[in-house]
């Protein structure tokens, strides 16, 4: 056999499991049909939360989730950011009714109980805010609120989390292939024996053999399973987020949508994120786009507490598919409340494991559980898991951005972005400037992208297409939509990867297409003006004439 295990899917669960398997000495092949994180993982809210909602039913689930959040902070400290959430006390009536007060009290007690778990994830205890304190912190809130409680959580750049897990797996010997889809899971005599795959960029087709296949293809897995003679039951749900240019709140704000569902607005870099919708989705998972209804639903919900959002410049609408467990069955272990691991033996596919569900926040623990199962399937003796101890690439010795900016010819905010995205590797990136000062060119002033960062990502972070840089370093995802950066970045990547001029233009067009799909439903106001500019500036790159 070529490998011990083949992992399908480069989301957080696929890459996390690849890392764990590789660290425990297995020969691993990971296939991702596009790029790391393009599915639910990168399009999630990116919250490493501590499972507050299980607190009343399964306290130990909350404890586990909080402990794991603490581990993620340990292995990727640079990639996490604190998001204090405010849960404002609203009231429909003029004066608060007894019922309102009871509800507020309940919230306070609930969040107060969560405080007991906060130390596990280095969170701060909750605080009750008076109305006056609330408005001092968040002057953009609509008038008439009675106060709030705070709730401390953590956020992460989920695209980079996936990439870092993948790169760590690679460093431990795993083989990674992006833009390569598993077409069929092959079986023989009741057991899986490997995978047939196709490389979308070269057209190469091939077979890889392994006694165990882990199907972590998220919303795509029912179709893949069906093609391979197995079944994976799930209920896919579409979730849409909006990105707003500039921050509309200083803190995360929890609020209710028109239908009473919980939503949030949270600051992220120099933007705000509004999320999310949640609706059943039965379409093609390769074809998800936000609709006008979903955009309006989110704007209305956010504006109910932050009226300024109505005038916001929406820069994009992005979606992901949740893979909700079809029906809650009996669970062997507590963490699998949120996920299930299906064994293919029932379909004559022994050695096939398929994951359904599985939150971003607990990816590490899930990966550990899956790796344990894989070792068992392979008949290997247990090897201890170390994914909670060994830092992810860049997660050790995170430098101080101000010191970096003093030592290198870059502005402090640029150094800060570099450290946020790359941790300790920011030093390597800045060393590139010593050999080639031209790489100090700031390609994007919105996102703080240096030419050197593009070169580093292309060289070391498994970039095969220009659009992969959207996920590695936020190329062309900001409000400017690639106006300044896209052409030069395409040329730099092309030079590194040996692209022909035609390939450079094709990659540039593909990058712009990806942005267009996210902006099409929201083009309005200043963002529509920007669209005219971006189209005008790039017309000559891909003009039919």
């Amino acid at each position, binding site marked *: 056999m070529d490998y011990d295990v083949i992992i399908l899917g480069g989301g957080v669960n696929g890459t996390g499991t690849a890392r764990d398997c590789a660290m425990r000495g297995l020969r691993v092949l990971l296939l991702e049909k596009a790029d790391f994180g393009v599915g639910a993982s990168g399009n999630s809210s990116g919250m490493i939360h501590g499972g507050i909602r299980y607190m009343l039913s399964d306290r130990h689930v909350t404890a586990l989730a909080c402990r794991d959040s603490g581990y993620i902070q340990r292995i990727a400290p640079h990639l996490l950011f604190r998001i204090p959430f405010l849960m404002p006390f609203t009231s429909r009536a003029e004066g608060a009714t007894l019922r309102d007060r009871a509800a507020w009290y309940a919230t306070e007690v609930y969040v107060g109980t969560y405080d007991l778990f906060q130390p596990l994830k280095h969170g701060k205890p909750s605080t009750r805010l008076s109305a006056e304190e609330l408005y001092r912190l968040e002057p953009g809130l609509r008038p008439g609120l009675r106060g709030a409680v705070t709730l401390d959580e953590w956020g992460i750049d989920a695209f980079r989390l996936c990439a870092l897990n993948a790169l760590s797996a690679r460093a431990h010997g795993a083989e990674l292939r992006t833009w390569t889809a598993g077409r069929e899971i092959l079986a023989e005599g009741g057991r899986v024996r490997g995978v047939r795959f196709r490389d979308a960029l070269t057209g190469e087709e091939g077979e890889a053999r392994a006694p165990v296949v882990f199907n972590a293809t998220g919303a795509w897995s029912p179709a893949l399973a069906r093609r391979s003679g197995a079944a994976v039951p799930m209920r896919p749900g579409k979730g849409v987020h909006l990105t707003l240019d500039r921050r509309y709140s200083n803190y995360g704000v929890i609020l209710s949508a028109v239908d009473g569902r919980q939503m949030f607005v949270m600051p992220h870099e120099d933007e705000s994120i509004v999320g999310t919708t949640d609706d059943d989705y039965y379409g093609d998972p390769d074809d998800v*786009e936000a*609709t*006008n209804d979903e955009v309006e639903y989110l704007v209305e919900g956010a504006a109910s507490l932050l009226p300024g959002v109505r005038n916001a410049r929406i820069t994009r609408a992005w979606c992901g598919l949740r893979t909700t467990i079809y029906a809650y069955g009996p669970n062997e272990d507590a963490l699998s409340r949120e996920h299930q691991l299906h064994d293919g033996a029932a379909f004559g596919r022994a050695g096939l494991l398929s994951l359904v569900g599985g939150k971003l926040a607990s990816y590490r623990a899930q990966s550990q559980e899956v790796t344990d199962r894989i070792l068992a399937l392979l008949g290997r003796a247990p090897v201890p898991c170390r994914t909670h101890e060994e830092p992810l690439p860049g997660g050790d010795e995170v430098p101080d951005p101000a010191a970096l900016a003093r030592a290198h010819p870059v502005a402090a905010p640029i150094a800060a972005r570099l450290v946020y995205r790359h941790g300790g590797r920011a030093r390597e990136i800045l060393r590139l400037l010593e050999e080639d*000062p*031209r*790489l*100090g*060119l*700031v390609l994007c002033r919105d996102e703080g992208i240096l*030419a050197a960062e593009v070169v580093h990502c292309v060289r070391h972070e498994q970039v095969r297409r220009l659009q992969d840089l959207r996920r590695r370093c936020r190329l062309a995802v900001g409000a400017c939509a690639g*106006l*300044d950066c896209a*052409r*030069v970045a395409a*040329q*730099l990547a*092309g*030079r590194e990867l040996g692209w*022909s*001029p*035609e390939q*450079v*233009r094709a990659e*540039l*067009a593909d990058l*712009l*297409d990806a942005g*267009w*799909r996210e902006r*099409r*439903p*929201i*083009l*309005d*106001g200043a963002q*529509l*003006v920007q*669209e*005219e*500019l971006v*189209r*005008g*500036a*790039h*017309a*000559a*790159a*891909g*003009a*039919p*004439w």
Partner: protein
Amino acid sequence: MVSPRAVAAEVLVVGGGMAGTIAALAAREAGARVVLVRRAPGATALSSGAVGVAPDPFALPGEPLRAARGPLEAARRLARLRPDHPYAVLGDRLEALPDALAFATRALAPLLAPPLERPRFLATSFGTAVPAALCQRSQAAGDLLAVGGALVVAGLAGHLGLDAALVAASLERYRARGGPPTFAVEVDAGLGELGLLRPHELARRLEQPGAAEALGAAIRAALPAGAGAVLVAPVLGLRPEAQVPERVAGAAGIAVAELLADVPSMPGVRLQAALEAALAAAGVEVVQGAIQGATGPGAPIAAGATEITAARWVLATGRFVGGGIARRGTLREPALGLPVQAAEGREAGVDLAARPAASLTGAARVGPQPLLSAGLRVDARLRPLDARGRPAAEGLHAAGAVVGGHEHASDGTGLGVAILTGYLAGRAAARPGGGE
């Protein structure tokens, strides 16, 4: 409060881009007293600086560059394919295109090169060549069909903005269609640290005494044998009067041309400056300000600290970048509140303007997008129409990107439409009923 200064004119032009300026100059030439109001530079100042009239929609992909039709024939062909396009809507008036282009060349004489019978094929920083009906003198020598010898793409040592090797390799592919052989060189003009400068900063640096000459000398030193012309990044100065292209070429001893620019575009900035100079030379009064909530020609209208009365108006306020069309939930025309149409294939209509953005765009980015080509609907005399298809106001004309049915990014007709419609609207406004 200061009472506004009152100005009376025969023609009020709203908008100071290519369309508004040509309209004002054409009306002025026809003898009218003209006032032009403009808020700020618009799309014209951001354009590559070359004038796209129309690429020939029937041209075959590999056909020799020499086979390309002239602008008028290409525009006629486009009009046949696209009934909503201004070229089609204008009917017979499309035939005025050569006059309009000649008029624009005269009006912007020092900046623009005289037109040829055929389009010029001008190279871009992407390594493609696009057909242009008119271009700046600083761009003309780069015409792929005019280079006698090899075309040398010169990159600036120490600057990543232009990948000369990539552009040269890419242009080499036009050889099969009659283009020149191409080479890339890197030149070090000894101008100090350039690496981190942005295009406008480079342009300003080259305006300094001796800088353009130093670049020219460096080019001369780097020239391979057999070079016929040199292409450089479009950063040859911000002000036309600084004469950077001429100074560089003089010192290089060879024809030097700029590549077409993306954004920010220094040739676009120079084009806008030339437009302003032409307005001043022709005696058009220019008022800085914005027109809002106007009812139409005839009634006095405030613009900045000026109150203007004119019986005929030309609305040349541009599209989204210019501010002539805006969208806030639905598409609108802010100056006069005229109905906006969004064309969807053959089904153009004002009722589509209120549709959600996603349903006014197609999933494929490249190609016509009803939302991006939205604008006023006009008749053959460039009179904006109301929702029922009748002229919206007496004495009102429209020109340029505010007129819908075209978009430079998808059909290559940007400044060409601005020149033709500006020319026609300006003349029509100057001579009501006359000559028609």
